[in-house]
């Protein structure tokens, strides 16, 4: 009997494609963010409020993932930016190959920001690198402040937590303080923005975050070096 040490990533094929995507995004100076949350936390609403506030001249596009239906793409197309639905047909997360496939006929040189809305799921999407610059996790106040401790992986891997549905705070027993503390126990450096997609609270802070990251990504383009 012989033991062969491998020490390789199980998702090495996904990692390879994600690295290629990341290189292509860098080459074109594109900011790519991967939005992850439970179903119903407000990913599509956040994107609606984002797209409606952006000047139509912004070079922004959205890939939105769901198990079934084109509903989200239909909601997001109203704002005039390119939107594509990825229907996974049962798979509970997006993977790098799906992103590569759906970008194949999009000219990346015309893009500055790519939003990826993952399938609603607080667990599985955290395992799959999509070549993004940052993962962003949404937690809504109706879900309970202990979620970061129960589902640590995604909070650990996200650079930003959007605490959404702040307008519902008067109606639910949710401690913002405890939620923030729990998120920082799992990930001390996580940035947090409190938002309501209904009242508009906090959306400026969110858009500022995206703008700051967009400038950084656009500035590091390898295109200008070539």
């Amino acid at each position: 009997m012989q033991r062969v040490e491998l020490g390789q990533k199980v998702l090495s094929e996904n990692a390879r494609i994600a690295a290629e995507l990341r290189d292509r995004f860098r080459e074109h100076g594109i900011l790519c963010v991967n939005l992850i949350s439970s179903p119903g936390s407000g990913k599509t609403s956040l994107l609606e409020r984002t797209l409606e506030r952006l000047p139509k001249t912004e070079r922004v596009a959205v890939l939105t993932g769901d198990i079934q239906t084109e509903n989200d793409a239909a909601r997001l197309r109203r704002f005039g930016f390119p939107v594509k639905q990825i229907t996974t047909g049962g798979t509970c997360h997006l993977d790098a190959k799906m992103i590569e496939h759906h970008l194949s006929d999009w000219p990346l040189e015309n893009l500055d920001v790519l939003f990826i809305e993952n399938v609603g799921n607080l667990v599985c999407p955290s395992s799959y690198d999509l070549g993004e610059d940052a993962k962003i996790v949404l937690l809504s106040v109706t879900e309970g402040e202990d979620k970061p401790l129960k589902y640590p992986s995604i909070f650990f891997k996200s650079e930003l937590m959007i605490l959404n549905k702040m307008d519902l705070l008067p109606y639910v027993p949710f401690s913002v303080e405890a939620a923030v503390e729990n998120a920082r126990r799992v990930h001390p450096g996580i940035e947090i923005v409190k938002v309501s997609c209904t009242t508009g609270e906090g959306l400026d802070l969110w858009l500022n975050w995206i703008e700051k990251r967009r400038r950084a990504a656009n500035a590091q383009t390898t295109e200008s070096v070539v």
Partner: protein
Amino acid sequence: MHELGIAEATLDAVRKEAARHPGARVTRVGMRIGELAGIDASALRFAFEAIVRGTDFEPLQLEIEYCLQKRKCLDCGLDFVVRDYDLQCPACHGLRSDCIGGEELDLAFVEVEEYAAS
């Protein structure tokens, strides 16, 4: 719930490795799963057993090493294991540290056995 996909990727890797050892069969596969990987070990085991069934690889044992979060203190250099999200260094009580383990989703090893000469 994506454990089935992880199990399939693992079996693919085993298949590739088996092809490098003609005349031998893979009897055991070892994985490392970190607590921050978002993988449920029992669901993975269930999925793995299900997809191995009926293949040439049956019986194939799966060994899972579960890895807790490990950090390196940036103040005193100690490597320590995190329990109950307590990120404080147990030696110097510093709060600055880098994560050095706990995100594993690795294929660690396979064990292969030569077929007995007939």
